[in-house]
C-alpha cells in the first residue's frame, strides 16, 4: 500500500523508515470529515493559525525587547519607532492576542451549542479548556511586559488575589513576585514564562488534535458518522474552506492592525509604569472582563477568587454535568434558548467587568454571576429530565439527500 502511495523515490525511501508522509497523508489529506460542517467549524484552524502567528511575532519581538523595569517601556517604543516594521510586528502581536481570544471564545461557544464535549469527546474538550487556561496565563503575563501603568497595576491586582488563600496567601504572593512588590524580578520571570508557555500550549494543542482525530469532528446535527457517504476527505474540501475562512479572518485582523491598532488596548498603558501613581480605574484586558466581573461580584475576597476560578473549573467537568445524550441544540428546543441566555450573560459580565464596582453594576454582576453558575451546575444536569428533544435524523447524508418528509426532524427545521 505504501509502495503505491508515493511516486517520489526519496519520499518513498524515507516514508518506509519514518512514515511521516503517510501520517500527513492520512491526517491532513484523506482524513474523513463530516460533510455538513458549517462555518463555525472554521474556528479551530483559525485558533491554530493565531497561535502560530503569536509565536512567530513573539520570537521576533523578544529579540528586541529588554526585560528590565528601567528599559522595558523604552525598548517597546524603540520597536515601535526604530526597528524596521517593528510597529507592524508589535501591533500584530498585540491585536493578535485579542483576535486569538475572539476565535477561541467562538470555538468554545460552538462546542457548547453543538454539544461537542459529549462522549466520546470528553478529553478533547478538557484539553481545550486546559489550552484556554494556559492562554489566559500567557496573555496576562504578556500584558505586563510593556511595563505601562495598566501592565504594572493589573499585575499587582491579579497577583494579589493569591493573598486571599488562608494562612499561606501572603507568602505565595511574595514568592510569585520574587520580592515584596511587583518589580524587576517579577518582570523577568513573567518574560521567561511568557516565552515558554506558548510552547506548552503547542504541546497541548497536539494532544487536542490527536484526541480530535480519534473520533473526528462533531457536526451541526450532532449524530455520529455512519459511513463514507457522510464524510468527505479533508483535502481539498476543508483545506479550501479553511483557506476561505482564514481570508475572511485575516481581513478583519488586518483592518484592526492597520487602522485601529489601539482600539482594544487601554491608553494608560502608553504611560510608563509608576508604582507611586495608581490609575483611577484598573481594568484588565477585555478578554478577562467576564471573569473580573465575577471576581468583584462576590463580596468576600477569597470567595471572589474561588468563584472566578470556579467559572473555569465548571468547564472542565461539563461533559459530566450535561446529562443529555443529544448533542446538537437543533434538537434541544429549551436548551437552545438557554444557550443564548448564557451567551448574553457572558457578554453582560464582560460589560460589567469594565464598569466601576458600584451601585447597579454590582447588583447586575451578582445576578449575572448567579446565572452563570445556575446554568452549569443546575440547568445542565436537570434540563434533560424535563426537556422533550426532537427526533434525530437517521444519518448525516439523509437530510442532504432529501430524505423522508414526515419523519425527518430536518424538514421542520428547514421551514422555520
Amino acid at each position, binding site marked *: 500500500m505504501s509502495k503505491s502511495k508515493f511516486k517520489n523515490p526519496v519520499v518513498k525511501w524515507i516514508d518506509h523508515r519514518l512514515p511521516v508522509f503517510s501520517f500527513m497523508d492520512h491526517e491532513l489529506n484523506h482524513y474523513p470529515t463530516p460533510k455538513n460542517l458549517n462555518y463555525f467549524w472554521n474556528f479551530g484552524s483559525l485558533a491554530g493559525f493565531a497561535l502560530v502567528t503569536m509565536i512567530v511575532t513573539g520570537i521576533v519581538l523578544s529579540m528586541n525587547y529588554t526585560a528590565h523595569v528601567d528599559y522595558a517601556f523604552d525598548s517597546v517604543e524603540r520597536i515601535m519607532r526604530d526597528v524596521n516594521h517593528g510597529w507592524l510586528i508589535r501591533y500584530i502581536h498585540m491585536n493578535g492576542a485579542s483576535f486569538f481570544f475572539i476565535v477561541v471564545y467562538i470555538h468554545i461557544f460552538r462546542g457548547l451549542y453543538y454539544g461537542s464535549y459529549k462522549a466520546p469527546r470528553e478529553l478533547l474538550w478538557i484539553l481545550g479548556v486546559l489550552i484556554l487556561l494556559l492562554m489566559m496565563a500567557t496573555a496576562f503575563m504578556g500584558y505586563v511586559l510593556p511595563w505601562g501603568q495598566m501592565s504594572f497595576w493589573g499585575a499587582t491586582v491579579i497577583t494579589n488575589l493569591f493573598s486571599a488563600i488562608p494562612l499561606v496567601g501572603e507568602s505565595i504572593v511574595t514568592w510569585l513576585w520574587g520580592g515584596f512588590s511587583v518589580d524587576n524580578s517579577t518582570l523577568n520571570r513573567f518574560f521567561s514564562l511568557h516565552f515558554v508557555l506558548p510552547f506548552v500550549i503547542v504541546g497541548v494543542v497536539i494532544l487536542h488534535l490527536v484526541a480530535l482525530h480519534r473520533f473526528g469532528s462533531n457536526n451541526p446535527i450532532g449524530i455520529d458518522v455512519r459511513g463514507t457517504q457522510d464524510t468527505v476527505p479533508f483535502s481539498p474540501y476543508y483545506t479550501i474552506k479553511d483557506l476561505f475562512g482564514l481570508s475572511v479572518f485575516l*481581513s478583519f485582523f*488586518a483592518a484592526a492592525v492597520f487602522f485601529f491598532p489601539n482600539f482594544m488596548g487601554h*491608553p494608560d498603558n502608553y504611560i510608563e509604569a509608576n508604582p507611586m501613581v495608581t490609575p483611577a480605574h484598573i481594568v484588565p484586558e477585555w478578554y478577562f472582563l467576564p471573569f473580573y466581573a465575577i471576581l468583584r461580584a462576590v463580596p468576600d475576597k477569597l470567595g471572589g477568587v474561588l468563584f472566578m476560578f470556579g467559572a473555569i473549573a465548571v468547564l472542565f467537568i461539563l461533559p459530566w454535568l450535561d446529562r443529555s445524550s443529544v448533542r446538537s441544540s437543533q434538537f434541544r428546543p429549551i436548551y437552545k434558548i438557554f444557550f443564548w441566555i448564557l451567551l448574553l450573560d457572558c457578554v453582560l459580565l464582560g460589560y460589567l467587568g469594565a464598569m466601576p464596582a458600584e451601585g447597579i453594576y454590582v447588583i447586575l454582576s451578582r445576578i449575572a454571576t448567579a446565572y452563570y453558575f445556575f446554568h452549569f451546575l443546575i440547568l445542565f444536569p436537570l434540563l434533560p429530565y424535563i426537556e422533550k428533544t426532537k427526533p434525530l435524523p437517521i444519518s448525516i447524508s439523509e437530510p442532504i439527500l432529501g430524505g423522508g418528509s414526515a419523519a425527518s426532524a430536518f424538514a421542520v427545521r428547514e421551514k422555520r
Partner: protein
Amino acid sequence: MIKSLLLFFSSHISKLFISLVIISLSNFSFAAGEKISYPQLNWSFSGILGTFDRASQQRGLQVYKEVCSGCHGMRLLAYRNLKSIGYNDDEIKAFAADNNVNTINDDGEVVERPARPSDKFVSPYPNDKAARAANGGAYPPDLSLIIKARPDGANYLHALLTGYVDAPKDQKVPDGMYYNKYYSGNLIGMPQPLYEDGVEYADGTKATPDQMAKDVTAFLAWASEPEMEDRKRLGVSVMLFLFLLTALSYFAMKQIWAPIKEK
C-alpha cells in the same frame, strides 16, 4: 402559548445579542468614571485614509519648541525623526544644535556638546524630581506619547489647551493651580500656555490659541504615532490583497464543493 413565546424569543435573541455586543463595544473604551465630553474636531489624520498636515505639524513643532518645551520633554523622539515632517538634513542639524547634551571627553570629564540629529530630544529637566521641584510639585508629563496615552487624545489635548476659563464663583482655586473646564477635577497645575500671538508663525498663519492648539496637537499626534502614514498606506494594499484572496478562495471553494452539494 409558552412555546410560541419561546419560539419568538429564540428567533429574535440573536439580533438582540448583536445589538448588545455593539452597545458594550461602544462603551468599553470609556471604561468607567465621569466623562467630560470634548469638542470633536475634524483632524486631517483621523479616519482610515487620514494623513498629517505637514504645514500644521511644522507650526506645531514651533509651538512645542517655543512654548511647551520649557517644561515638557519628548524623550522618545530623536531630532532625525523630524525628517518625516518635511525638514532637510541641514535644518535638522541646526535645530538639534540649539540644544546641549552631556558627554564624557577623553580626559574623563563631563562636558557639554551641541546635540546631533541622532540624539533624542533634550528634556528640560535633568530628572523627574527636578521637574517636580521647578513646578510646585506637579510633574509636567513627557509628551512623546501623550496623544496615545489619553482617551480620545487629539480632541482631549486641543480641548485642554483651549479650556482655560474663569473659575465659577463657588470654586476656590488654590495658589499654583489653574481652572480648566476640560481637566478632570478642573484644577490643573499647568498655567494657560497659549495666548493670542504667543508665537510668530513663519508662514504667516494667524497664531490664535485655537490655531496653536490644533497645530501642536497635529505635531504631537505624529510624535505618538510616527508610523501612522506608512501603516495606513500599507494597510490599504493589504486589504486589497485580502479582498482578492477572499473572493478567489470563495469561488474556488464553491467550485470544489459543487459536486457534493448537488447530491
